[in-house]
Structure formats: structure tokens, C-alpha cells
């Protein structure tokens, strides 16, 4: 979840007449989690579906609504202009076909605002921009650009001075030498030509989706901005633009339109959309009995507009709220505006009779039996390591099932057996008193044509007199008393077990597991100083 750092004092200025406490009490009811607080600073986690909350401007709009200071939808006031044309060449169609943009004028940019804008840009890139693959933004100093602009492609030998640099480099060099070049260069693939935005003086403005040119760098002296969004889908690019436009407007800028044409591109609309939802559905889903005016005022507190139409409510949704797909989303907006704290939980008696799954019941019985036999229940991860599962126990690793890119070396392989984990447990408890007797039931995995899962049961006993008879008695009695099953054992040799002290566990002529004394070499490798006996059987093939 993305995190944004805010200042209470700034928020108070933006929201209007509120106390710090009112703000901190209200934030969670906007769906924002306070991660940490330090005097005036507060770190807030927000949901990636609300990129408008990536700045304090967006959060202030939400707070104003919830606190009833300003309600209703935020309307973008975009002045129509012909001064900012962008022409798109068909060469970009195969790489990054769409560009959109807006001009924002007469704003005051201080360090705080600059910080917020950079933060917003990063979050938009990571979230809805899908790490810049889907869409990406460039924010420029408008006064350093001479329109019209051209969005086209260029060779990798084209030179310009990238952002945060003072020297001119070729695009190839930029892709190799800058951080963003290395991180996002792969989006451009291997094509010889790369997308570029150039102005009427042939200056490079931006190399989407990698980096802007240094010439248009935004500073605290910048008054007027040009924002461009490029992407692989027109609607997604406009969604991203709508967030930036809304934030800039609430930061005090006045918006002017850009005119885009060529290669299936057109000027952005940033229109509101309308969705209708029935009042009875709202009340049914929330378990409330709200009047139409109450529903409408709740929606307005969520910064939407709404009006009644028969038994339905027509909602007007600003462009930046593209997280709203349909009626259920609007019902959530009603709930938020109404106040989650005002929803009283109710409990309706159940019409159904609950029951445990038969598998859980059987396992519970087995647990009781094993505890009666003096065995302690252990729990190990099903995702374990090659060392535990195969190397330490000399088991056959030809049918290994691994996961990709695990962040933990101890969790890379799905277990095909429980016993090795129990052995590992015993080895980590050598300083504890004996006898040590443990058991575990759990899922084991096998791969043939496809992957299969079975439930297995394993027990282990370690003490100075541990012997085959003891562990066979445990297995025999647990199954006989627990489930009325009689098993036999048949001589077997297996690298985990001592020769002559190992047997297959046979049920109805079929092998369901293995039992025996653990090979002394393995015991030695584990530095366990007492003999260890154990077994493992498949429960899926016996009692389940």
C-alpha cells in the first residue's frame, strides 16, 4: 500500500475550520490508515484505487466532504484554448500510441507542493501506471516550451540533457546511465526508434516513459505547468490525467486545454459520468432505511453529486473517480458519507446449521489419540527447503516442486513428506529433556502429470531406548483404536532409515507409508545423541 507523508498544519489550512484532532479522527473513515505520527507530521497509508489521496490536496477534498465543510462533486473548470496543440505521428502507434495533456497556470509552487507533486507522480506511475508500462506522466515548466509539440519517434542516437543532469547524452546513454533509464528502459523493448516529445524549436521535452528533459524542470519559481501523459491505452492515460488535473486545480492553478490530433489521438474530455442506483438496493445492502435526501447528502459528503429520479438516485461522478464502476461502488460511497461509525452492527439468527468438515473431524480424532499416546503436536511450514527435505535425510529429490523467486531461502520447496521437518525439529531441541515425542498431520504435495495434494500423518520418537517395536505399536494402536484399521509392515530399504529396521506400512495390500529407525548417519549429521524412530503414512489413502 502506498504511503504519503502530510503535515497537520498544512491540512488544516487546506480543509478549513478544523482541529488537528478532528482530522486525525476522520482520516480512518475516509479509508486512510494512520501509519505513524510525529508531532505535526503524519504518515498515511492509502488504497491504490484512490490515487487522488496521494497528495494533501486530495485528502483535504475528502476531509472537507466528510466533515461537511464543502460537499458535492469537484468540477474541473478547463478554459478552452487553441494555443497548445500537440500533433501525433503514426510512428508512435506501435510503441506507445497515445498522448494526452493539460496546461495549468498561475500557481504558486513551494517546496511542499513540489514534494507532493513528485510523490503523486511516483504513486500514479507505480499504481494505475503499472510501473509506467500502461501510462506515465511528465510535468514541465510551460514557459520553457514553444508550442506546437510533436509526439513522434526518434533514433537512440538523439541527444538531449536529461532531468537532473547538465550534460548532453544520447538516448542509449541515458537508458544505460540514469536510474529511471535502467528501471524502465525495458518498456521500450528493442525497437531502434523510441517515443519522444519535441517542441517547435526541435528541443526534446520528454522521453516517455523514462525521463523529462532538464530544460523544462519545475522549480519553486515555476508559475505555469504543462502536463503530458503517454500510454498504451487512451482511457487509462486520461484517467491518470484527470487525477493530476484535479489536484492542480485544488492547488490553485487554472486549467487550460491542449489540442491533440493525429494517429487516432484526440483532445482529452475529462468528463463526469452518470450512474443510477436504486434507493431500495442501497438500503437492502446497507441494512438501513435511509430517505432519499439522506442518501443524497451522504453521497455529497463523499464528494459526488446526486439527484433523485423516481425510486433511483442519479449520481454524477467526476472523471478522477474512475474507481467507481457501478452501483455497489456508489453504495459504498453512501456508507462512507453516512459514516461507518454510525452503522450499528446487527445479528440475525442463522437459518443454517453449521458443521465441521469430515476431514477436520477425523484429524481431530487422530489428534486426541496421539495426545493420549503421549505425543506432542508440532506444526511445520509446507514450504520448506531442499536441505531439510532432501539433503539431510538422503531422500530422492527427482520430483522436487519449487516456487519461483522466494525471498526466503528456507522456504523454496513444497514438502512431499512431513517426517524430515520433525527430524529437523528434534535436532533443534537436543538441549531439551528426553523422551521427545512429536507428531504432525498436514498437506504433502506430489507432482506427476499435475500437482496433487494429500494429507499425511507422521510421528517421531527420540530417546535412548527408542526402537522399532515402540513406534510400530504407536502406529498400530493409533489406527486400530482411532479408526478400526489394521496395518501390516513389510521389510523395505530406504536411505532415510537404518537397514533392517525399516518397513513399508501396508493397508489392504497397498503401501500407505513407511516406518522405521532413522539411519544413524543422519542422526549423527543432525548431532542428535539418541536413537530416533518414526513413521509417515498417507491419511488420504487410509482414513480420509
Amino acid at each position, binding site marked *: 500500500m502506498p504511503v504519503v507523508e502530510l503535515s497537520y498544519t498544512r491540512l488544516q489550512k487546506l480543509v478549513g475550520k478544523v482541529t488537528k484532532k478532528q482530522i486525525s479522527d476522520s482520516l480512518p473513515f475516509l479509508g486512510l490508515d494512520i501509519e505513524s505520527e510525529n508531532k505535526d507530521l503524519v504518515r498515511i497509508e492509502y*488504497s491504490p484505487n484512490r490515487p487522488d489521496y496521494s497528495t494533501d490536496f486530495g485528502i483535504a477534498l475528502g476531509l472537507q466532504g466528510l466533515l461537511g465543510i464543502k460537499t458535492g462533486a469537484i468540477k474541473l473548470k478547463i478554459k478552452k484554448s487553441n494555443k497548445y496543440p500537440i500533433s501525433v505521428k503514426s510512428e508512435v502507434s506501435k510503441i506507445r500510441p497515445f498522448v494526452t495533456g493539460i496546461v495549468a497556470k498561475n500557481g504558486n509552487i513551494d517546496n511542499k507542493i513540489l514534494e507532493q507533486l513528485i510523490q503523486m507522480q511516483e504513486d500514479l506511475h507505480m499504481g494505475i501506471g503499472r510501473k509506467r508500462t500502461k501510462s506515465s506522466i511528465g510535468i514541465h515548466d510551460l514557459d520553457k516550451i514553444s508550442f506546437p509539440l510533436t509526439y513522434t519517434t526518434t533514433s537512440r542516437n538523439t541527444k538531449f540533457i536529461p532531468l537532473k543532469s547538465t550534460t548532453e547524452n544520447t538516448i542509449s546513454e541515458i537508458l544505460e546511465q540514469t536510474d529511471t533509464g535502467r528501471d524502465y528502459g525495458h518498456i521500450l523493448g528493442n525497437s531502434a526508434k523510441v517515443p519522444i516529445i519535441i517542441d517547435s524549436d526541435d528541443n526534446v521535452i520528454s522521453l516517455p516513459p523514462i525521463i523529462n528533459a532538464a530544460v523544462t524542470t519545475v522549480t519553486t519559481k515555476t508559475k505555469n505547468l504543462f502536463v503530458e501523459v503517454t500510454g498504451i491505452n487512451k482511457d487509462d492515460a486520461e484517467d491518470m490525467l484527470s487525477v493530476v488535473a484535479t489536484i492542480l486545480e485544488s492547488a490553485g492553478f487554472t486549467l487550460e486545454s491542449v489540442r491533440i490530433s493525429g494517429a487516432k489521438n484526440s483532445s482529452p474530455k475529462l468528463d463526469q459520468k452518470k450512474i443510477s442506483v436504486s434507493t431500495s438496493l442501497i438500503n437492502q445492502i446497507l441494512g438501513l432505511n435511509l430517505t432519499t435526501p439522506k442518501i443524497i447528502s451522504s453521497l455529497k459528503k463523499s464528494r459526488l453529486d446526486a439527484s433523485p429520479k423516481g425510486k433511483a438516485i442519479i449520481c454524477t461522478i467526476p472523471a478522477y473517480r474512475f474507481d467507481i464502476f457501478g452501483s455497489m461502488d456508489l453504495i459504498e460511497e453512501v456508507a462512507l458519507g453516512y459514516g461507518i461509525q454510525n452503522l450499528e452492527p446487527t445479528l440475525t439468527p442463522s437459518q443454517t446449521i453449521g458443521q465441521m468438515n469430515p476431514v477436520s473431524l477425523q484429524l481431530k480424532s487422530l489428534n486426541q489419540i496421539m495426545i493420549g499416546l*503421549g505425543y506432542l503436536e508440532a506444526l511445520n511450514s509446507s514450504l520448506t527447503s531442499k536441505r531439510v527435505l532432501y539433503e539431510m535425510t538422503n531422500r530422492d529429490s527427482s520430483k522436487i516442486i519449487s516456487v*519461483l523467486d522466494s525471498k526466503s531461502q528456507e522456504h523454496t520447496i513444497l514438502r512431499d513428506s512431513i517426517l524430515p521437518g520433525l527430524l529437523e525439529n528434534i535436532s533443534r531441541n537436543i538441549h531439551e529433556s528426553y523422551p521427545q515425542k512429536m507428531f504432525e498431520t498436514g498437506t504433502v504435495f506430489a507432482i506427476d502429470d*499435475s500437482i496433487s495434494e494429500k494429507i499425511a500423518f507422521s510421528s517421531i520418537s527420540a530417546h535412548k531406548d527408542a526402537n522399532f517395536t515402540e513406534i510400530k505399536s504407536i502406529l498400530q494402536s493409533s489406527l486400530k483404536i482411532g479408526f478400526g484399521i489394521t496395518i501390516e509392515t513389510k521389510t523395505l530399504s530406504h536411505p532415510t532409515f537404518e537397514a533392517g529396521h525399516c518397513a513399508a506400512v501396508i493397508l489392504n495390500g497397498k503401501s500407505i507409508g513407511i516406518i522405521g529407525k532413522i539411519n544413524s548417519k543422519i542422526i549423527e549429521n543432525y548431532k542428535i545423541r539418541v536413537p530416533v524412530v518414526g513413521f509417515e503414512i498417507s491419511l488420504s489413502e487410509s482414513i480420509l
Partner: protein
Amino acid sequence: MVLFFGPSIGLARKNDWIEASSESVSIKNLPLELPGEKTLKQIGEKKLSKDEINDDDLSSLLKRPDFIVEDIVKTKEVTLTDSAKSIVISDSSGEIDVEAKVPDVFVARTHPLKDTIDEIREIFVTLGFSEIIGNMTQSSFWNFDALFTPQDHPARELQDTFYLDGISAKKIATPEQIRKVSDSHKKNWRYHWDINEARKMVLRTHTTCVTIKHLAENKPDEARVFSLGRVFRNEKVSYKHLVEFNQIEGVVVGKDANLRNLMGIQREFYKRIGITKIKFWPTFFPYTEPSLQTMVYNERLEKWIELFGMGIFRPEVTKPLGITKPVLAWGGGIERIAMLKYGIDDVREFYNNNLSWLRSATKCQ
């Protein structure tokens, strides 16, 4: 006329101890020792090999319950059990020091985490929920696509989810389910939906895949079901994160399926595990709308802790799968509750199988 038969008469006659006619029995010779007596003396405290013992005696001794232990080793040995060999002779009639310290004995027990799991399972059963189970390995289709999580969503990346190396599901769902789910993705998320992505096998990241599959197969008008089991996240293991943990997830389908009832079920559940100070906050999940999370107050840590998440399945989830009624869903991790219960600050403790802890943790908290 009385007839004397039976194994003991036969044995006595064979050994020439008695004289028996059709009318009477009389003693002829008194035996020097009883059968088996010699063998018993011979075994004594020792462990003997089978061939050192008189065969007849051994087989009759083995018939006596709990008397002779047969050690199944290739070279058979027999030993007397404790009850056979120990004769307790009290050598003092004096009093003992009843106030003296005695050693602790270790109790065999279920795992503390399992106790919490069982407790939670039982609470939901008594609230009218039935338990369903499903696989830990799932196709991406059921773990993600069916839950309206777009294929380019960050949660689906290798760095968050465990993908099985080189394993793809052959049959993931019915053709109709695949078509409708992919249509919903294309329409709402605007991207090229790829069936090969949906085939990739993952270790389930939640148990929701089990419940949604159940609902898609059964399409109930009225239901309360839950699923409980291990789920996986590709995280760095730390005191607060595990790669594998337990989750419970439940759903309610029916006419009473509304948000306040969903909150009511949560409140009732927390009450039963002893948590009464709770509140609800809005939150976001890709597959529910509205979505809430429960915050519970922990006295020991003196702070609010996030526990179960909940919501109503989005129509974008239910409609393509033919589920027409609203579905309430809630769920969360169990280790977190067990940590509160056992006062544990390091979640790894549950899977260390550290005997000193397992042998000393108090069973009922």
C-alpha cells in the same frame, strides 16, 4: 457318570501326574515343578533370544496378556514387562515429605496455534457456518481472475505471490466461466486478458479462492460456509511476517446479507474470543465493495490492531460466475489472534516447535 476332560486334565494325564478313569481322578505322582516355571526363572530380568526358551512354554506365556514382550527384531528377544518382573515390597511404613518439591512432567498436547484454530472453527460452526476445504495449490484463475484482480495487478507479481516453477493448470474452469470472467476483465480493466496467465499455478494467497469456487459450483440462495487453512505470501520472514500462515474466510449468502449483519457476525465472533472493544473502518479490497476492516483494541500493547477484513463481493466477481444473490465475505489471519492470545510478539514462534515453549505454554488462556 462324570467325565473328566479339558486341557488341564489332558496335560496332567500326559505327564503322568494323575490317574483318571471314567468314574474318578486320583493323584499319581506330584510334579517337581510346574510347566513354564523353569522358563520364567530363566528369563527373569533378562532379555533372551527366542531359541534359548522352551517353545511350548514361550507360546503359552505369550498367550497371557501383558506378560511377555515380543521385540520384533530379526533376532527375536523376549523380555518380561514391568508388571511381570516388579514386586513391590514396601520397606518402610513411615510418612513421606508431602511438602517436598516434585519434578514437572511434560504434558502431551495439541499445538497452541492449533488450539486457536480449533476454537475459531468451532465458533463459526456454532454460528451456523459449515466448513469447506480446498487445495493450497490453485490456478491463478481462481486465486485472482475470478476475484476481479487484473492480470497486471501488483499483487500478482512474483515478488508477492509464490508461483509454482513450471506448473500450469490444464483445466481451470468451465468454458463459460472462463469466457465471462475474461469479458468482465476486458470490459472493466481494459487490457488483453491472457488465458496462460490464468493457468499459472500459485500457492493460494487467500482462502477466498476456495469459497468463490464453492459458490460458483453450487450457486446457493442461502448459505453460510467458511474455509480455513494455510495461505502463502512471498515475504521476507520477520517477527511479524511469515511466508505461510493460516487464514479463515467465510461467506453468507441470502436475504439477510447486508453490511450491518456482516458487522454483527464479526462483533459476535470477537465477543466469543474475548474481544469486546472493536470498531470498523472502511478499507479497500479488489473484490469487495463496500469493504471494511475490524480494528480491535489490545490492552497489553495499548493500541488498535487491524484484524479481519470484510465486504460484499463485487458484482464484477459474482455475476460472471452466475451468482445472483449478494455475498457477504470476511476473513483474516489466525496467527495474529493467537499472538494476542498467547502474548507472543514474534509470529515465528508458532512454527519453531521449540519444546521448552510447547511444553510450558498454558493450554487455556
